């Protein structure tokens, strides 16, 4: 049987490629804001309970229960804020990019419902600075929603007020970390903050704040419309519902695929994305964005299940799946990821600020034939100052998860290609020694 997507969040934008982002099309063909209307007739606490019962887990990376996060807000402390994380930057993730450009009304509706549920009267949509078209469409959607009474004062006669501000980032990966995002929104460098206090207790301007990802909020209207029971009936175990997976790298059909959780990596990569291109064999794949430890061909029949991924010592993270064929040098991929983290380390915590640069430099020489015999062990040795124990789930000596991410790919190299790399380093070293002897 052919493998198929289960489209919920992407159903409308796929069905109307020409105008899905317009207010008219969204109202006429997608019942946009009908879930908001329903939600405004519910008790806020009932909405929180409903989303909790649906099992919806954050789609940004950490996979924390969305409704649970909302329930952490301290009682009777106001004002509260909602911050939407649209600063998509985890390498090879491009799902929020699509949702922003092609279904902005679904996001605005999710924002309004969530703000009502947590009783916030001001929400910020923090959009990655580089997303020019996405920001334009979200701003247009917000303007249209104001003009039609779905945002602003006394929404649909409910007495609930909500203002939404579209805010642009300016090029910075770590603003995608939830506390980094709040620092950035306050006009600071996007440096993450020590938790606790968690944003739910003290977030934006030290007020209770919920930070949710774009895809998470895009799912909320569907849960309100069709019920928690329906959503919880989709998926597998504690990974309920559907997720959008961004598949890229060396596949026939790179793209975003929304599938029911529990589908196998094989069905996603081979069935939907067309498999490794040009008939080549799969060497390895990264299952959850650059920060996720790697998986091998023998893992293809494992399910897309967040908790099963943890058992395999990796994660589904941001839902980005990078596929590499047999011709790829894992050391080159690892070095490029190291270079990324060295560039994006914000510099707040010493282990990450200093360590990420070291990892970049050592991997560069390893990948370019200049490695020393003990280089992999050298990396594992000083890397354990960032990730004590080097064992997933990663411990960390840094404030945010960028720290352990600097070592995630190194741990993967050692786990799956360790013997091969150690042999290669010895060979490269011997070759250089021989050349020196000849030259002298």
């Amino acid at each position, binding site marked *: 049987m052919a493998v198929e997507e289960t489209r919920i969040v992407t159903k409308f934008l796929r069905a109307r490629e020409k105008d899905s982002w317009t207010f008219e099309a969204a109202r006429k063909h997608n019942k946009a804001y009908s879930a908001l209307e329903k939600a405004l007739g519910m008790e806020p606490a009932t909405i929180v309970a409903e989303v909790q019962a649906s099992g919806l887990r954050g789609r940004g990376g950490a996979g924390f229960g969305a409704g649970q996060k909302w329930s952490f807000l301290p009682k009777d402390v106001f*004002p509260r804020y909602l911050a939407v994380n649209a600063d*998509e*930057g*985890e*390498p*090879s*993730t*491009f799902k*929020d*990019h699509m949702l922003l450009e092609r279904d902005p009304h679904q996001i605005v509706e999710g924002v309004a419902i969530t703000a009502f549920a947590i009783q916030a009267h*001001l929400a910020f949509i923090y959009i*990655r*600075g*580089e*997303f*020019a*078209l996405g*920001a*334009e469409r979200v*701003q247009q959607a917000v303007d249209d929603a104001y003009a039609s009474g779905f945002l602003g004062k006394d929404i649909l006669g409910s007495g609930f007020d909500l*203002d939404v*501000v*579209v*805010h*642009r*980032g*300016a*090029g*910075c*990966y770590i603003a995608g970390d939830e506390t980094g995002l709040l620092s*950035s*929104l*306050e*006009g*600071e*460098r*996007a440096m993450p903050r020590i938790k606790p206090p968690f944003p739910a207790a003290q977030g934006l*301007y030290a007020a209770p704040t919920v930070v949710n990802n774009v895809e998470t909020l895009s799912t909320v209207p569907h849960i309100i419309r069709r019920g928690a029971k329906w959503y919880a009936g989709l998926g597998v175990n504690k990974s309920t519902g559907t997720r959008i997976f*961004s598949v*890229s*790298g*060396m596949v026939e059909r*790179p*793209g*975003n695929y929304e599938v029911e959780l529990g589908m196998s990596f094989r069905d996603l990569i081979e069935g939907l994305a067309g498999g490794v291109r040009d008939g080549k064999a799969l060497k390895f794949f990264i299952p959850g964005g*650059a920060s996720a430890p790697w998986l091998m061909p023998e893992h293809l029949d494992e399910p897309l299940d967040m908790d099963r991924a943890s058992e395999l010592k990796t994660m589904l993270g941001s839902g*980005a799946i*990078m596929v*590499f064929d047999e011709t*790829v040098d894992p050391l*080159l*991929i690892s070095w*490029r*990821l190291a270079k*990324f983290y060295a*560039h*994006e380390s*914000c510099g707040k915590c010493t282990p990450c600020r200093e360590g990420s640069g070291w990892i970049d430099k050592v991997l560069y020489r390893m990948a370019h034939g200049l490695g020393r015999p003990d280089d992999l062990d050298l990396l594992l040795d000083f890397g354990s100052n960032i990730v004590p124990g080097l064992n997933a789930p990663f411990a960390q000596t840094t404030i945010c998860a960028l720290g352990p991410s600097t070592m995630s790919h190194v741990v993967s190299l050692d786990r799956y290609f360790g013997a091969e790399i150690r042999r290669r380093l010895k060979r490269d070293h011997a070759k250089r020694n021989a050349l020196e002897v000849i030259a002298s």
Partner: protein
Amino acid sequence: MAFTDAESRRAKEIIARYPHAKSALLPLLHLAQDRDGWVTPESMEEIAGLLDLTPALVLGTCSFYTMFKREPVGRLVVSVCTNVSCLVNGGPSLFEGLRARYASDEDVLVEEVECIAACDLAPVMQINYEFHGPVTSEAAVDVIEQYQRGELVARSVSGTSLAETAKTGGTA
């Protein structure tokens, strides 16, 4: 260059959106950069005045973000991704080729960037933050030339363009 009356009105309107004025820092830096093509020291001082911050604080935030240029970069910013999904699809050679070609062109900045979230279009580049991909080196040059001739025009990052602001007198 100091903000004109229309620009100051626009700036105040942006500041008013936030409970704390300092939150308007990034939007105001975008506004200044959209006008001048880079963030001038004078702009930073003026923004500091508007937000009641020191210029050093403005510089401290500004220098953290890669989109803010603190020296003139020319009219076109060409951002080429070389992160892993682009790497296995020819991103690095696209970048090197364009960098060499425009090395002495003061009007075009070719920069290597981290993942810009369009890996289904790999190898992908942005021209003034508009996406183009997948592109070969030849196609990339062709697109750049279309921007140079004015056949393609990028959106402004700060949203409403200042020209529009001037026309409408700065109302939202």
